[in-house]
């Protein structure tokens, strides 16, 4: 077993902070810290499936990650340590890390602020020996009692026989020291991954700017990313719920065109969506939930071909456009074999398509000549002065009641514009239907 301990000495305070700048909120929220620690524990599960957390009455917190099993996968522990620290910094939590083969040892090295890691018990004892007794996680009265004996360093205490320690300082102190050096196992309760993801946070000071929501949202989405990585799943949509006063809610569903789990991507989509959202009322809390967990389609690690990378980037653009402009904002066009010009096309929601098959080019030439622009509705006009080509008679649709009988012409305007016009054969009136742009 090898443990990475993350000490969070200002956790309760930082967890209640609504934004990165206001690290000291006006008051602490009693519920903020446990919820935030739950989210952070899920975040940590991307590196280890054995994560344990602890929150003290003083408001500091700690997470332990068992990294012995995953160490080989992730590279050396020094790399992992740097990786965890780097991921933790933008979340705005003050932190210190320690790595040791025992839970208490890792916590103590983190408290001591040592950058060196202990991989074996011998290394741990060596690192602990010169440290002051005050770093031990023992009640104050026992620390005072220890100091009274004239001992100063942890190494001096650990050199004493355990029976004499138990006799002089009590069984609890002896048990702690045995666990610290790895002579006795540490009972831990591990965080379980729930079947669905839900994480929330509350703010001490209500937020009325959507941009200010991004910082706390980033923490929640970091939790979602860790959760999804731990379960090797991805999401195609997640729910972002803004909580207002008296239980009022604003629900936003953030959709991805393709399953993903990258927190930065999930946040970027939410940012676009929030930018287009007008807050009805100040926000007191945020909730992120994801129900439908899917197989991840493209992992970041498979450094895929350029084409796949392009399609991934394209997908992200589609997602961003949909998030900001609305789900139906991006549309694809289709061609329908139909004589009536207004029915010779259709529109559908855009989606990624396979590379086009190289169809026969001559097939296109069999189509009649048509203008590039079609007007949404034919517009009545006077009889055009100059007709360049035509007529092309279109009579169709008697079977569905929307029948037409028209003669189409190419007309030229005084300014050189060429229009696609028709004369209605029944009513006799003239209309513009398209523009030869």
């Amino acid at each position, binding site marked *: 077993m090898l443990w990475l301990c993350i000490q969070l000495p200002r956790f309760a305070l930082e967890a209640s902070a609504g934004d990165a700048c206001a690290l000291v909120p006006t008051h602490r929220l009693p519920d903020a810290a446990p919820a935030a620690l739950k989210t952070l524990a899920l975040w940590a599960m991307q590196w280890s499936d054995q994560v344990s957390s602890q929150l003290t009455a003083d408001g500091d917190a700690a997470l332990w990650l068992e990294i012995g099993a995953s160490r080989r996968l992730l590279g050396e522990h020094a790399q992992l340590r740097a990786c965890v620290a780097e991921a933790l910094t933008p979340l705005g939590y003050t932190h210190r890390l320690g790595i040791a083969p025992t839970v208490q040892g890792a916590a103590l090295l983190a408290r001591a602020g040592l950058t060196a890691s202990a991989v074996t018990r011998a290394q741990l004892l060596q690192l602990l020996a010169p440290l002051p007794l005050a770093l031990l996680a023992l009640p104050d009265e026992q620390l005072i009692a220890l100091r009274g004996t004239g001992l100063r360093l942890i190494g001096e205490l650990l050199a004493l026989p355990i029976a004499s320690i138990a006799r002089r300082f009590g069984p609890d102190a002896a048990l702690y020291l045995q666990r610290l050096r790895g002579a006795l196992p540490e009972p831990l309760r591990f965080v379980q991954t729930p079947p669905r993801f839900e994480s929330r946070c509350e703010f001490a000071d209500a937020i009325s700017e959507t941009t200010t929501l991004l910082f706390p949202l980033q923490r929640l989405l970091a939790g979602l990313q860790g959760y999804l990585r731990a379960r090797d799943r991805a999401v195609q949509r997640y729910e972002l719920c803004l909580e207002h006063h008296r239980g009022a809610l604003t629900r936003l569903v953030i959709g991805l065109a393709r399953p993903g789990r990258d927190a930065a991507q999930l946040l970027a989509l939410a940012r676009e969506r929030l930018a287009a959202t007008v807050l009805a009322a100040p926000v007191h809390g945020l909730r992120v939930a994801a129900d439908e967990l899917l197989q991840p389609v493209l992992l970041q690690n498979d450094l895929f071909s350029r*084409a796949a990378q*392009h*399609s991934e*980037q*394209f997908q*992200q*653009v589609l997602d*961003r*456009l949909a998030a*900001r*402009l609305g789900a*139906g*904002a*991006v*549309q*694809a*066009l*289709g*061609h*329908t074999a139909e004589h009536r*010009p207004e029915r*010779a*096309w259709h*529109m559908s929601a*855009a989606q990624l*398509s396979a*590379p*086009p098959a*190289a169809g026969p*080019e001559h097939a*296109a*030439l069999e*189509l*009649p*000549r*048509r*203008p*590039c*622009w*079609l*007007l*949404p509705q034919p517009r009545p006009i006077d009889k055009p002065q100059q007709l360049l080509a035509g007529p092309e008679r279109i009579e169709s649709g008697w079977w569905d009641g929307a029948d037409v009988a028209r003669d189409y012409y190419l007309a030229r*305007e005084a*300014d*050189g*514009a*060429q*229009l696609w016009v028709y004369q209605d054969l029944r009513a006799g009136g003239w209309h513009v239907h*398209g*523009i*030869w*742009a």
Partner: protein
Amino acid sequence: MTFQALQNLSAPLSGLDRDALRARIDHISRHAHADDPPGPAVQPTGFADFDALLPGGGWPLGAITELMPEAQGIGELSLLLPALAKLSRAGRYLMWIAPPCLPYPPALVRHGLVLDRLLLVQAQDARAALWAAEQALRCPAIGAVLAWPAALDDRRVRRLQLAAETGGSCGLLYRPPLAALQPSPAALRLRLKALGPGLQVEIQKARGGRAHALVVHPAAAVRA
């Protein structure tokens, strides 16, 4: 060395040899091109006489082109269709941001566009349309971005120009004829006029090329 490589190609090769050979040919061809001055990346317009007047010989890629037609319906869109058709056939996407009318599929298919690759973006207002154009221009999977901004200042065009440089795609902006009076950081600026049955294209500005050249396209070629 290239000759040797070619000779080797005729002999039966194991997979390993073939890979090694391919790597070597790649190396040789890279080396051969390393000394050439890098020309601007372009997409040929499909009109040989027009290409001849453009720096690099086509629509500039990774840059903004401004088209300023005097009227709607003079062939201003047909001028783009051969290039757009090529891009779409190569699998690149074409993003049309808030076009003024419906791009009519029967005409586009006739011009050889692959409809799968054409996407329409509907935007609530001019600001959203510009934002969407900028997003699309940054994406390398998108071959061309077409937009019809009503009003545009220098700063905005420069932003779009930067976005196009990032994505390497062809940014095509339709602007009103009056825009020709203002300077613009766009790489290529064209004034379009109906001339008899054809389209007169005046190159007002071409980065790295000649300005004020004139070319006339017969309508038959452009709008067939």
